[in-house]
């Protein structure tokens, strides 16, 4: 994504404040909000994808091995994944 100049001059503001770059909210890393961080234990993970489904950020993804992990740039540390994980493969630890 191209670095956009901010703050814009009035001539640069998009007419009607329209935004033409779909999904560019991803430029804002909500991971900085966290107080707790999820830790995924591969040995317990059964690759069911429940954590992926329930993440409000949609930041849990399946890695190359098929195990799930959270993108820490966006994870707000809500703990839903840990609460919903059936085999208890996710633990919330304090962000050090």
């Amino acid at each position: 994504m191209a670095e956009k100049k901010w703050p814009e001059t009035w001539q640069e503001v998009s007419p009607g404040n329209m935004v033409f770059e779909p999904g560019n909210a991803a430029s804002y890393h909500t991971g900085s909000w966290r107080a707790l961080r999820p830790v995924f234990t591969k040995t317990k993970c059964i690759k069911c994808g429940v954590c992926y489904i329930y993440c409000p950020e949609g930041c849990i993804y399946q890695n190359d091995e098929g195990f799930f992990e959270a993108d820490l740039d966006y994870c707000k540390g809500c703990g839903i994944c840990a609460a919903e994980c059936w085999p208890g493969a996710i633990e919330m630890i304090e962000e050090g």
Partner: protein
Amino acid sequence: MAKRVGMEIAIAAAEAVALCRPDVIAAYPITPNTHIPEHLSDIVADGRLDAEFVCVESEHSALSACIGASAAGARAFTATSSQGLLYMDEVMPIASSMRLPVVMAIGNRALSGPINIWNDHSDIMSQRDMGWISLFAAYGQEVIDMCVQAFKIAEDLDVMLPVNVNLDGFQLTHVVEPMLFPTQKEIDKFLPERKPYAAVHPDTTVSMGTLGMPDIFTESMKAKDEALKNSKKTILKVWKEWEEQFGRHYQPIIEHRTDGAEVLIMTMGSMSETAETAVDEMRKKGMPVGLLKLVLWRPFPYDDLRKAVKGARSLVVTDRAVSFGSCGPVGAEVRSALYDEPDAPAIVNEIIGLGGRDVTVEDFIAMGEKGLKAEKGKREEEYHIYGVRGS
């Protein structure tokens, strides 16, 4: 070739709008503009116009639906008056901020309290700050012409702003006037298909109506203000093209018998016709009075006004609304525009014709006489409600 037809002006407005091939019409009935959406729905029902007529359940929904339609790339139209305009007030600034070329016809009617269905300008005057282009028609011919011009002005990519065409309720909407109707072919030549700047459609994905934090809001407002001021160029261009194709001339302030006028009267809307007759009478009597008919209200035509009043000793600005406790809206803006002009005329602000009160030729002559007596630097009152019993 244009044919001259005698028709009720509201019906004519509907016919003119239909010639512009709108895609979506969303409107709610309110006296006195109801005939406009009614007749449009007739035209759609008869298959003469391929459009979606949305019978919305309120005026707020009417303008909201037009905004939605315009955001999706359609040519959208609505019409209302008075309380209906107030009900859509919430979305008025949104239409202009979102740079959507919605066109609206307003059958000007008094704002309630007490409820009154007759004509004055209090409805449109409550919308001064909404960022719309605002035109005032004095005759049925002007109504037809402006309805078509409105779409072309609004949709110009240098403008992209909503436009309202103001026609006086009953005094224009319900009056039968002989008018020259352009043909569909002529309108198609004048007004091409809309090419939207952006449209909410998966093929042109965009987010419209985003949130503006303090750090960008001022710039957004400046951009909006500049767009409205800048639209005057396009308005003049479109009027020039109109004159070239149809032979009828428009300018921001139309003058009548102003040569050598010491006193000028300013009117907007249908009163202009009565005032014209009055000025002719006054001239016969040797009174050096001329008439300024304000056509372009927003963006405010500063330059045209200052040029038009040069040489006049006094200017009687007629208002058809009161900003209670303060001023007549047009009077105040005119005074403000002329404040720093050397030799600016004395301003007399007469509030006339509230809630459909008739204003006669004799009344204008009386105002002309008042203008003759007015002296610069001697402001007797901020504004005067003309003809009120009990003063």
